[in-house]
């Protein structure tokens, strides 16, 4: 009997919470929120992660909508990777709730693992295997049929198909890492600093790849340290620091708000950047 009353109380609490959430959503309605009628791809509620006494992620709540590219920005140690790895079911959270495509990751971790593609910031591959063998192993893990060459084609690694993963350059490894996320053709893809360490050509080509994935209807959550990348790719951004989201908005809205606060750049902006010069001189085709 006392249990039932407790439940009632908790239900009441949750309804109160929902109302609060609604008001937050209403506040956010001024922003261009997509597909408000469909369920968000990811719902994160009051997520917390402590390592002993240090708080890595502090009471995070955010939604990622279907079909968008959602960027998480923040300095090193802000908690970006920790947040991603909790949603990816790699790390245990301390408290809070995470739903991926409506599935609670605590209750359905295996189902969640099946519908997501993961590119880890640092990830190695089974030694002494060539790229095709390595991709085939992932197809066994996800129990899917793949055309390994077609996947390598999308990351421009066809000519390395028979090379060992150990022999790839840093940029090639990064691309191969993204290739492994495509094996299960997931609806939700996590990219943790996908372009770190890449040359400008590879970076731009990866941007095209990511845009192509979005055009195919995939939802993408990514972290990056490059602001131009965030501006170019992301529909919405969450800016994190010290385990907290400071603000979530669209890139343009962020810039507009900053200008509204009276911000002016000390130097006039050049009409071209050094990167534009570099790309103009060296071309934009894949390297290494």
């Amino acid at each position: 009997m006392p249990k039932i009353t407790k439940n009632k109380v908790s239900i009441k609490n949750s309804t109160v919470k929902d109302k609060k959430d609604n008001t937050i959503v209403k506040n956010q309605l001024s922003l261009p929120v997509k597909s408000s009628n469909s369920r968000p791809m990811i719902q994160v509620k009051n997520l917390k992660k402590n390592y002993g006494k240090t708080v890595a992620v502090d009471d995070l709540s955010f939604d990622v909508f279907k079909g968008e590219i959602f960027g998480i920005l923040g300095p090193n140690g802000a908690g970006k990777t920790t947040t991603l790895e909790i949603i990816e079911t790699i790390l245990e959270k301390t408290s809070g709730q995470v739903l991926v495509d409506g599935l609670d990751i605590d209750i359905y971790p295996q189902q969640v693992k099946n519908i997501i593609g993961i590119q880890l910031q640092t990830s190695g591959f089974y030694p002494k295997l060539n790229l095709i063998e390595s991709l085939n192993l992932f197809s066994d893990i996800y129990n899917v049929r793949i055309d390994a060459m077609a996947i390598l084609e999308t990351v421009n690694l066809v000519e390395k198909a028979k090379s060992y993963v150990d022999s790839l350059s840093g940029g090639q490894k990064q691309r191969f890492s993204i290739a492994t996320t495509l094996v299960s053709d997931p609806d939700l893809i996590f990219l943790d600093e996908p372009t770190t360490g890449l040359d400008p050509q590879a970076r731009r080509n990866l941007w095209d790849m990511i845009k192509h994935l979005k055009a195919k209807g995939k939802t993408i959550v990514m972290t990056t340290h490059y602001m131009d990348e965030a501006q170019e790719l992301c529909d919405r951004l969450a800016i994190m620091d010290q385990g907290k989201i400071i603000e979530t908005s669209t890139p343009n809205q962020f810039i507009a708000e900053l200008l509204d606060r009276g911000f002016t750049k000390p130097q006039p902006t050049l009409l071209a950047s050094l990167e534009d010069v570099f790309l103009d001189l060296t071309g934009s085709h894949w390297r290494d």
Partner: protein
Amino acid sequence: MQRYFRQFIGFFITSFKALWRTPSGWLFGFLFPVVFVVIFGYISNDSQPTIRVGLVYDDSSIYEPIKKSFESSSIFVVTEKQEFNSLSDDLANGDLDGLIQIKSKTEVILISNANKPQNVSSIVQVLDNINTQLTLSQNQVESKAFEIDKSELNSRQIRYIDFVLPGILGYSIMTSAIFGVAYSFLTLRKDNVLKRFFAGPTKVSAFIMGESLSRGFFIVLQNILLLAVAAFLFNFSPRNGLTGFAEIMVVIVIGLITFLGFGYLVAGFAKSDEVISPVANLIILPQFILAGTFFAVSSLPVWLQSITKFMPLYHFNEAIRAISIDGAHLHSNQVLIPIGVLIIWSIVVYTAAAKVFRVR
């Protein structure tokens, strides 16, 4: 289920390919043991200081003088038995160099080990001497006191290689299982390979089973090659031929399971490369030295012997030698008891390994 099986097969094939392509696996698992086998195969133990003679009599009249003349020389070790059959078994097993049966006052039968001609001629020399003495004492001139009826038996010759090969098998299985599992697991964990696998829907047991089976398969393959090399170079063969070979394989598989478990245990404990070598050697070296790899445990002091009886390698070696040297079968206690001990070790080690196993 289909999904689980596919993961298992995937890991099995992947891991086997990777093992096949890794030179150090061949170096430690095959080349070093072969070098051991070749070195010890050429160590000859023909220069045995003692000559073992078995005595049995139907007629006791000339028994005492014959026995005394053999015992007077320290070269000979005399075994007396009432049963002729028991002594002839010893001869066939290679435990005796010659068997002397005194049929009557005038008839002595010598059956000798055909593989030890020098030893046999020493025995014949002693018999001739005593014959001359008896002839003189009996004042017979024209005929000898007794006739020596000589025959030869192709008895089994236990060479050092026959003893040491099971030891080398055990050592190579233990080393490649423990070091192989520990290093590869630590590397996979450190390089975030496991993290990536388990970020996907990978079943831990499918992964462990696939890895273990491929490693086990690889080690068994290397040991078959090793046995083939020993058979080719030194004519090594288990007592019961192919049956014995198959029985040795069964024991190898059981030993492998035990030693792979030790590998997982070390991999679970070790947080870095530097830890693996000392921890693994702590398990390997005492067994390598004491548990009968190069010399029989019975030659150790008794207190040390009782310590070695706890070691899995000792029981592995016991079982293999029982099959290959004594011709024991799997269902005989000589093999069953060591196998039982190995299984108990497996249970202990895997329970402990499951507690310390980490993906990250």
